[in-house]
């Protein structure tokens, strides 16, 4: 159980993929103008990453490792993700049109969201955060899920700030990307306080 707690806090706060590691910056900056769209994007990403973590773990452990094809990991994973996004899109269209309407526009953007690939690769290779231990299927999937929640958190927080900044007297030349970048930088400062939290948690555990 403790493993899952560590994964949860680790992926969301301490090693947040966006705020602490620079992944997924493009959608982070691109889809954070409105809180509602940010939430939609976050949900779509969470959906895909969780599934992708699950499948890539299987691909890694049942195809690539036995066949000694680890060097093809990048190609294999990105294909899995691209196909997955396609499948999810089609499935949503048929199974749940309302959800498709909410998430559909974001799905194509996910293929090129590097968080997805980064999470999948880190999960299977670096054993995420668990002291070099490779994660099992369940933990790996959960890890992906938490990473996605972390991404969503960062995205929604930035969107909240950007919405609020519309009410401020921000100069014209700060609007758009320059402002968003500096906001993200200041946000990242706030996330730095969680550094070292993990060792502490381990101590208690």
């Amino acid at each position, binding site marked *: 159980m403790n493993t899952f707690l560590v994964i949860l806090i680790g992926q969301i706060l301490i090693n947040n993929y966006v*705020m*602490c*590691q*620079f*992944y*997924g*910056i*493009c959608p982070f*900056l*691109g889809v954070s103008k409105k809180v509602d769209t940010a939430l939609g994007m976050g949900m779509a990403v969470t959906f895909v990453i969780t599934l992708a973590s699950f499948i890539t773990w299987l691909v890694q452990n049942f195809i690539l490792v036995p066949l000694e094809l680890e*060097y*093809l*990991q*990048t*190609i294999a994973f*990105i*294909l899995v993700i*691209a*196909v997955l996004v396609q499948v999810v899109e089609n499935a949503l269209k048929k199974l749940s049109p309302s959800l498709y309407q909410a998430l559909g526009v974001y799905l194509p953007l996910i*293929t*090129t*969201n*590097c968080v*997805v*690939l*980064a999470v999948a*690769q*880190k999960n299977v290779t670096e054993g995420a955060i668990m002291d070099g231990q490779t994660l099992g299927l369940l933990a790996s999937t959960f890890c992906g899920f938490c990473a996605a929640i972390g991404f969503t958190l960062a995205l929604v927080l930035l969107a909240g700030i950007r919405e609020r900044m519309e009410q401020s007297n921000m100069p014209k*030349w*700060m609007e758009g*990307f*320059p*402002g*968003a*970048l*500096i906001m*993200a*930088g*200041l946000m*990242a*400062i706030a*996330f*730095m306080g969680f550094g070292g939290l993990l060792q502490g948690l381990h101590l208690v555990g």
Partner: protein
Amino acid sequence: MADRKNTVTRTFLNGLITENPTFTLMLGMCPTLGVTTAASNGIGMGLATTFVLVCSNLFISLLRKIIPDKVRIPAYIVIIASFVTMVDLFMKAYLPDLSKSLGSYIPLIVVNCIIFARAESFAAKNGPVQSLADGLGMGLGFTASITLLSIVRELFGSGTIFGAQIMPESYQPMDIMNKVPGGFITLGLMMILVNAIKKIIGKRRAARKEALA
């Protein structure tokens, strides 16, 4: 013929300056921020990306009439991913230090939106020579801007440029420049600067046009 040469040059310059992927198109932000703590990283990342970009642009342009429209995205991905894997393995073998400091950002070139964007919006519509020029221009534009960013970050974060001490010995490095917030804020400030310069140039150009008229 001269005309064609002209457009090739223009395409190249377009990528390098006018539509600079970092400062104008805001593409490929993750490596831009992720690896730019040292100038050498910036150049390494930039050149690796340029290589992939040039090759993928060329191949996609050559194959653009063969690839069926429906499967073009998976096809592009496979082409890009193959080159990325080549670069990754090459760097692991011959530049192990650089490879280590760039870490997972090398395989992530696959999902660098610059490459995908150029494949989709340029290489798929233009001939191989044009595509090559575009890839080279965009790649070098990317390299130039991330090297610039990494020089600034290295200077303040470590007091050095390309490892050479620049700041006086008494300078106490500003560690936050090497961390995530430093990256975001430096790029943000640089973008403000670039936009300001662009505006000034634009104004001057307009003034000159007016004077001519």
